[in-house]
C-alpha cells in the first residue's frame, strides 16, 4: 500500500475522533489541534492498529505528533 492509500484510510479513521471538524493537514497535531486526550489516543490508535494489523507501541507514539508523521509511521510499519 502506498503512502497516499495509507493517508486516505487514516483520514477516514480519524473522522469519528475529530469532534470539532478540524481540517486535517500534514502538520495537524493530535494533542494541540485535535485536542486528543489519552483515552481518545488509545481508541484512535486501536482503530489504526486493527485496520492495518500492526502494533504502534506507546514508545513509537511518543515520536508521532502530527498527521504526516502518523502516515509515515504506519506506511513504514506496514512494509515490515
Amino acid at each position, binding site marked *: 500500500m502506498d503512502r497516499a492509500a495509507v493517508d486516505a484510510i487514516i483520514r477516514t479513521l480519524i473522522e469519528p475522533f475529530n469532534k470539532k471538524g478540524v481540517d486535517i493537514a500534514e502538520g495537524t497535531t493530535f494533542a494541540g489541534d485535535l485536542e486528543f*486526550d489519552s*483515552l481518545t489516543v488509545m481508541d484512535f490508535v*486501536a482503530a489504526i*492498529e486493527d485496520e492495518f494489523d500492526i502494533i504502534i*507501541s*506507546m514508545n*513509537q507514539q511518543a515520536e508521532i505528533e502530527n498527521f504526516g508523521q502518523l502516515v509515515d509511521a504506519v506506511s513504514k510499519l506496514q512494509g515490515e
Partner: protein
Amino acid sequence: MSENRDLFSKFDDIIQVRENLLASGVEDPFSLVMEKVLSPTRAICNGRDTILLGTYNYMGMTFDPDVIEAGKQALENYGSGTTGSRVLNGTYQGHKECEEALREFYGMDHAMVFSTGYQANLGIISTIAGKGDYIVLDIDSHASIWDGCALGKAEIVPFKHNDIEALENRLRRIPEGAGKLVVLEGVYSMLGDIAPLKEMIAIAKKYGAMVLVDEAHSMGFIGEHGRGVAEAQGVIDDVDFVIGTFSKSVGTVGGFCVSNHPKFEIMRLVCRPYVFTASLPPSVVATAATSIRKLMHGSNKRAHLWENSKRLHAGLTGLGFTLGTKEPQSAIVAVIMPDLEKGAAMWEALLKEGLYVNLARPPATPANMTLLRCSLCAEHSSEEVETILGMFERAGKAVGII
C-alpha cells in the same frame, strides 16, 4: 542571555482547577486530617467522629491485638528502623519471617518484600521487561504499573480495559521472538470491577507471554485461601508473578512479589527499587507477618465483608445512585458522580454526616469520571452499613444527586 522560565508554570491548569473548587467553599477533599483513629472503622476527622468507608482496610487488621503486640515486641527488640538496604545491612530476621509467611500464604517458592506496593510494581515490571521486550497492559492499570513501564525500556502496548479480544489482537501482532509480559490486575480499584483473568491468562499463555497480576485489592478475602481473583478463577498456577501490598488487607505498609520462577531470587540483586532503598522497619515486617498468618484463617471475617459489600451495593442502587459495577464484585463500591463540583459537594456533605469516602477524580479515574469510592471493612457492623446508607440518602438528596 537567558530567560527565566518558572518550572512550575506547567502546573498552572491544575492549580486553577483546585482554586476554583475551594473557592466554592467546599472543604478540601485532599487535605483531610485524622486527628485520632479509634478503630479500623472509626476516626476523628477534621474534628468530627467519622465512620471510615474509604481506607482499603478490608480485613480490619490495623488494630488486631496480636498484630499490635508483634509490632511492639519488634520495636523493642530490633529498634525503630534498619537504616539500610535489604542487600546490605537491612535484612533482619523479621524480613525473612515475613517472606516465609508470604510463601506459605500463596503456596509459592519465592517471596520478595519491597518497602511499598508502588515499589513492588515499579521494581519488578521495570526490571523483568527490558529493551526489545513488550509489555501488554490494561489501559486502566494503576499508576505504579504505568510508572514501572516508564522506568523500563520495553515497548509499551496498552489495550482497552478488560477487553479480551483487544488483548489477543495486540499479543498476536508482537514480532516473533520478542519477550512478552502481560500485566493485569485482579480487582481494578477505581470501579471495583474484577478482570476476566481465566480467559486473559489463557490467551497470554497461548502467545507465550509471562503474566503478572496485581492482587492488591483482593488479598485476604477473594479466593478460597484469600490469594486473590486468579485463585478464585482457578488460574493462579498460570500466574508467573503476583504483586501485592501490605497497605490494604494486611493493614500496614509494604509491597511484595511472589513467584515460582526458578531464577526469581536474582531479582534481589538486579531490581533497583529493591536495592537502592531502605528496608521496612522491624515493627512493620513483624506486624505484616502476623497479619498475613492470621489472614490464612479469616473465613468468617471474609463472609461478613462480602455481606457488607452486597448490602451497601444493593442499598445504594435502591436509593438511585449510579455505581461502577452492576453487581458487587469486590469490597469496593464506586459511586459515580455527575461532575467534580457535585462530587466534591457530595463528599463534603457525607463528611458532615460523619462518613469518610475517597473522592477520586481524573487523571486517576477511567473515562474522566468523578467517583466517590467506598471500600468496606470486615469490621463494619451490619448496623453501621445501614447507618451509612442513611447518610448517603440525606447527603444525596441535599446535593441533588438522587
